[in-house]
């Protein structure tokens, strides 16, 4: 007589409950995904959400173009693009960190030091420029500053093992303090050939900054959405165990994402110096709007994941909103409320739809 283990048949068969009458057709159905119904439901929900987001975007554009005649002119659109450049570069940097760190904002990817990074990089640029250094030195200084901040974040997260939310919070404090030390909390004016080129108008009366934003987005999107590197970045963030099983060095990717976002902070610093003709205080105020913008960007992607193009759309959406409100003489402070409501709406919709699917 055989022994106990012979009778352990757990998990031998995974048969859902099927009424006896349906048994005849069971065999042919074996390969059909049992989740076909819910899957369709979720696809539909995803489509609805994404379509809804785009519809809202278009709706806003239409309303503004009808009510504010100047809204839909090339000049105005160029302006919005130019004004969005700084926030756009920051949000793209944050998006990279979120992709590599996963969507859990507390334990996953977030970089709270981005806005402060921009402030310090701008201050470094302006200070160097004022001290008589050339454009090249100033640019290197700003980008180097950004990269260094990214490196500190990367080390804190991957080596010391501090959760990103806290690590970057602490770094944010240090960086903001350094900016104060450097500028004594004053405006440091800066000018130069390079800055004038950046802040000037380009072809078709569209500011150079606008072209810059589009070019930058294109380049980063090409890397993140269309190269193996980008695909791996998503794997690392979405399911680290799967990435590890595929032989990917997870920590290196996470560290790399912080370096990239640090570099974005440096770049945004340079743009802000050109836009404001110097470095100014209060960079930290950009932080939470940028976080919200990056998070909102997920609704503009097919799979509801953070994407570079989605973030750009989200940035432009906010930009157009502010611009439209200005044209209509509505207080632009309402923008933050709209952003807040939107994020709540979007997240509620995803949560509720997701829950329905689970039942």
């Amino acid at each position: 007589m055989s022994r106990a283990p012979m009778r352990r048949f757990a998990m031998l068969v995974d048969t859902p409950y099927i009424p006896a009458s349906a048994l005849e057709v069971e065999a042919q159905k074996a390969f059909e995904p049992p989740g076909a119904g819910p899957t369709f439901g979720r696809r539909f929900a995803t489509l609805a959400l994404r379509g809804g987001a785009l519809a809202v975007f278009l709706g806003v554009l239409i309303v503004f173009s009808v009510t504010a005649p100047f809204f839909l002119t090339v000049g105005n659109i160029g302006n919005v693009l130019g004004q969005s450049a700084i926030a756009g570069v920051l949000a793209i940097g944050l998006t990279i960190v979120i992709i590599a760190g996963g969507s859990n904002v507390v334990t996953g990817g977030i970089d709270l030091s981005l806005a402060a990074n921009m402030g310090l990089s701008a201050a470094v640029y302006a200070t160097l420029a004022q001290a008589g250094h050339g454009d090249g030195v100033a640019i290197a200084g700003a980008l180097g500053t950004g990269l260094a901040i990214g490196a500190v974040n990367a080390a804190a997260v991957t080596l010391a093992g501090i959760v990103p939310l806290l690590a970057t919070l602490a770094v944010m404090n240090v960086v903001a303090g350094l900016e104060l030390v450097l500028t004594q909390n004053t405006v440091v004016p800066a000018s130069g050939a390079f800055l004038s080129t950046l802040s000037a108008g380009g072809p078709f009366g569209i500011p150079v900054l606008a072209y810059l934003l589009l070019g930058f987005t294109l380049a980063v999107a090409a890397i993140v959405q269309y190269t193996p590197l980008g695909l791996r970045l998503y794997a690392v963030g979405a399911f680290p165990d799967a990435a590890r099983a595929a032989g990917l060095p997870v920590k290196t990717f996470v560290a790399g994402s912080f370096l990239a976002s640090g570099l974005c902070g440096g770049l945004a610093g340079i743009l802000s110096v050109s836009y404001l003709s110097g470095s100014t205080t209060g960079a930290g105020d950009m932080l939470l709007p940028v976080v919200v913008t990056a998070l909102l960007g997920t609704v503009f992607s097919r799979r509801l994941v953070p994407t570079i193009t989605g973030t750009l759309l989200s940035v432009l959406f906010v930009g157009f909103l502010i611009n439209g409100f200005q044209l209509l003489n509505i207080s632009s402070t309402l923008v933050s409320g709209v952003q807040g409501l939107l994020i709540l709406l979007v997240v509620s919709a995803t949560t509720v739809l997701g829950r329905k699917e689970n039942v």
Partner: protein
Amino acid sequence: MANVAVSSFSRGVARSALVAALAAVFILFAALAPGFLSGANLLSVLVNNFALLAIVAIAMTFAVSAGGIDLSVGTAVDFSSFAFVSLVLAGQPVALAALGGLAGGALVGLFNAVLIAGIGISPFLATLGTLFVGRSVQQLLTNGGNPVYLPPAGVPEAFRFLGQGTLAGIPVPLLVAALVIGGAWLVLSRTRFGRVALATGIQASVVRYSGLRLPRIAAATYILVSTIAAVVGLILTSTVTVYIPSSGNAFLLNAIGATFIGTTFDPHGRPNVPGTVLGVLLLGIVANGLLLSGLNFYWQQVGTGLLIFCVLAIGFANRKAAGRA
């Protein structure tokens, strides 16, 4: 057995990292900063650099204990402040106005509770949304963000008591902070609610499978967080006799920092009231000491940031080591 000894030793180090940092900065400033040790200065540290942040950080500690975070603590401070000022301006008795202030803050918590417990949004996103919506609501209420002043003549004496009064020679804000700290410590470590919130933060599914209702726990937590933060709104308004829209957000990042610094105080890395208080104290002493040291004013923030960074790094590194052992 050797393993046990090693891990308890490293836990000991983790535990003392915060205390050691506190002792070190205290001694350092006592030696370097003229006037740091004077009674008047130490009292001013407690009143100006400690009391209000401590209360907000305690509120945050509850949210973090339950496994979440509340980015809208500042919004609760603001709503409380606005309600308080408005009711006083409308000629209501101060006590009633103060209750109204607490209710105003609690309203923010109620909104969060609906989002988190009702709809099921993650606390970070829900409270981030609340923060943004709250900012706009305040702009709307104040004609685009104008401060609401109380005319100096028309302010009842009782109004100033919370922020500027003393009781038996001790400033009232400090007494309130002590009360909140003591109460929060009891609630978090000695009551059923505190235990369940902590368990939820550690492993929510077990709490659910133990027959406890997670949505209720979350709702209670976020309403409590906002109500505690609302106390700060009252004290703040009473001190400066003005309501400035969205000013409460100034507490947010330091409150988060202090709470997480505080987790390094617990042998298991749990959020805890004494740790949070020590964290706030550390931040306060550093801010004050650097100021008195005659160092450049702006080095303050750098120093504070570096210190937070180091404490966190040591704490997390120790926890990692303990986890490996």
